[in-house]
């Protein structure tokens, strides 16, 4: 007996409630926008400059004590967070201390780090600093630029590729789904205030890749069915295609999530934010490739005389498959 998450042939109508889905997505996008606007992202030092110091101590020290020790140094805004993770040893007490970029400093003064380390060593002489990272404001502003460019060029490149392989309506549908995923991901990062750093950009781009992966599989089936059933109206063809690929969509999402969850729980705290972004992205990406990409396609309409145009001239890249 096989484990089947999707039993037999399904026949859901995904567009019955398209207003509901579009409404839900719009609302989430607006919420994300509001959160991004008012609360903003909790940028890591990669993007805002400054210093983070990770401390590791075998004795429990209250955060207030750390704060008290550091306040005397007059370093401006200091954020101290305790870090918990199931992979830690029993007496492994970890905190993350973020110090903002000191005004007027192009580079990082070693003395700042040294003074912090000294102040903390007074609390526990055996305290360790396994991770000390400083990024100057010059580099961080460049990193922001590079990150924005990376995301934009990734979207542009896939837009182009899908336009080559399919039709422009498909490309637009896929890209709107992508933008939807990215906004929602940034929204949740803003809402929950998880540290947003360079690794999260990598996660965002992976979400772009994953979400597309899903969308393309559905679109590939739509293309095939459009050729097969020339008389059926578009919403039927779309529904049929999504239903036919549903088993695969769910299977792949589950295996990917299985892997990601084990990484989230067991992979240590350093990459937790990164993995969280991907888990969220897989869920949102799966949803958007069904509801957003499909709905956009339905709204835009697709040229139906595929077989005629593709037989001779048509889209020359459309047929290298099979």
């Amino acid at each position, binding site marked *: 007996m*096989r484990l*089947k998450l999707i039993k037999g*042939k399904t026949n859901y109508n995904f567009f019955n409630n398209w207003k509901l889905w579009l409404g839900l997505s719009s609302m989430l996008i607006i919420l994300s926008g509001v959160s991004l606007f008012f609360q903003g992202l909790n940028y890591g030092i990669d993007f805002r400059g400054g210093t983070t110091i990770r401390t590791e101590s075998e004795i429990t020290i209250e955060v207030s004590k750390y704060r008290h020790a550091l306040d005397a140094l007059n370093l401006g805004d200091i954020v101290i967070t305790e870090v918990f993770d199931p992979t830690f040893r029993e007496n492994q007490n970890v905190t993350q201390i973020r110090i903002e970029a000191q005004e007027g400093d192009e580079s990082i003064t070693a003395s700042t780090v040294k003074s912090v380390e000294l102040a903390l060593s007074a609390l526990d002489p055996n305290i360790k600093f396994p991770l000390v990272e400083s990024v100057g404001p010059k580099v961080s502003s460049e990193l922001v630029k590079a990150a924005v460019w990376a995301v934009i060029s990734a979207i542009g490149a896939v837009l182009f590729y899908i336009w080559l392989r399919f039709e422009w309506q498909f490309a637009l549908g896929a890209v709107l789904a992508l933008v939807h995923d990215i906004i929602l991901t940034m929204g949740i990062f803003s809402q929950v205030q998880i540290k947003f750093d360079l690794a999260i950009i990598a996660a965002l781009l*992976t979400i772009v890749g994953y979400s*597309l992966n899903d969308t393309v599989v559905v679109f590939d089936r739509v293309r095939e069915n459009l050729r097969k059933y020339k008389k059926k109206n578009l919403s039927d063809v779309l529904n049929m295609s999504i239903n036919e690929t549903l088993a695969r969509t769910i299977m*792949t999402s589950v*295996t990917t999530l299985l892997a990601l969850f084990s990484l989230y729980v067991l992979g240590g705290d350093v990459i937790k934010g990164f993995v969280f972004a991907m888990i969220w992205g897989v869920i949102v990406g799966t949803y958007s490739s069904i509801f957003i990409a499909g709905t956009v396609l339905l709204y835009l309409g697709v040229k139906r005389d595929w077989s005629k145009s593709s037989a001779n001239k048509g889209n020359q890249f459309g047929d290298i498959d099979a």
Partner: protein
Amino acid sequence: MLQISSLKRISILFVVLLGILFAFPNFFYKHVENYNDAIKSEALLDGVTNKSKLTYWWPKFLPSRLVNLGLDLRGGAHLLAEVNVEEVYASRMDSLWPAVRDALKAERGQIGSIRKLKESSFGQLRISVSKKEGLVRAIEIVQAMAVPVSSVNALGSKDLLVSGQDGELTIELSEAEKLATNDRTLKQSLEIIRRRVDEVGTREPTIQRQGERRILIQVPGIGSANELKSLIGTTAKLTFQEVVRRISNPDEAIRPENGLYKAYSKESTNAEYYILKKSPVVTGEDLTDAQPSFDQNGLPSVNFRFNPSGGKKFGLFTAKNIGSPFAIVLDNEVISAPVIRDAIMGGSGQISGSFSVEESSELSVLLRAGALPAGMIFLEERTIGPELGQDSIDAGKVACIVAFISVLVFMFLSYGLFGVFANVALIINVTLIFGLLSVVGATLTLPGIAGIVLTIGMAVDANVLIFERIREELKTAKGPARAIEVGYEKALSAILDANITTLITAIILFVMGSGPVRGFSITLGFGIITSVFTAIYLTRLFIIIWFERKRPKSIEV
């Protein structure tokens, strides 16, 4: 019908075996690492080895390339430095001044008297000319002093840019010369940093140029970024300069060709200052050797020797200035200002200040390694402790294994025997990724491990697409062989499109990203390539071989 030619079969299996062979050393990481170190030190020391320290078991005939571990996994320090090339422009201008002055003075009749003005921006030489009508002539004279830029990209352009207005002459380096200077300065800095880092003998430091004027330095195994910084020594610029006079009030007005320098002292109270001529007599570049020693009073000092041209310049200067002091300046601080008793013709001398023994030996190391041509500021620095790296490796390993097992179990439950085929392919898939990483010499980072785990989850996608397609085709009852064949055929376009789009994003990440993010893009990209390969060739081969043997009348996927 269902078949693959034997040539193809052999090729597929060959690729797989090759991948496994290259991935193999990584399972015995410590042994192979020691083996590689031993080989390296044998080659270096030619037989005289400290091999006894390194225990390893590794046969010579097997490949010994390993996946490099990134700094975040191994621990170490990372620095991104920007070289202050403007300093070089400025010192070029400072050293140009005496020659320009002499050339212009020779034509005093036409030009009138000249005076050096304060530069309005860094790296400029501004001179006022008393006879305004003589400005054109002055420009001509200075222009004649310009020489062609010594760079392939700037054929025909001169190194100086001379302009004049309202009786004022401005000289600066031309754009082409600036670029050539940047190039030279960066190359010199890289070389010097490399030498200094190598003196400590750590394993595989990365020292590379980034962009126009930046240098990335990554040294595994070093204690902290600060340690690395003091090893590199931010400037250690040594010059010998003429003393104008010694003062105690730093606010005193000084002429533009002179500069104010603080005297080096350990106590910061009652600081002393010197006014020195800005253009140095000799610089550290002319230094050939420096050794710690003791002076006639038994105090720690540093002995140094110049190259012939430096020695000559120094000799001439000391001969002319017997009885007056000269300053030994390190990093813009006057270390000492001894009075010249005799012309120093031999090209060697001694620096003594209030050094401790450690300081004198540290100073001599800095001087010997050669002064950095310009100062550096550090834009980014990271220290990763080795324990944190080890923790990350351990956590990553556990996460990988758990991810692996859960996906394997899930696939088996969903697809039965076909699931087993996919699982074997998945295991080979990850092995192939490690093989590729080793062959290319790529660096595995923590996000890279995440990329592998993600691949474990996503790699089955291609197989899922195929299996689901076969299930569908089976429903239309064409017989198992035909269903498998059509399933593969029809799933192909979706697999290719889906994976190419992901590959595009991986490539963009590789191009735009740096460090750990790049590590992620590499494993993600390799994962895509290997998973497509294993899905459309390897599992297919498994299925066909199984099918040929069993010839089942019906199959269940």
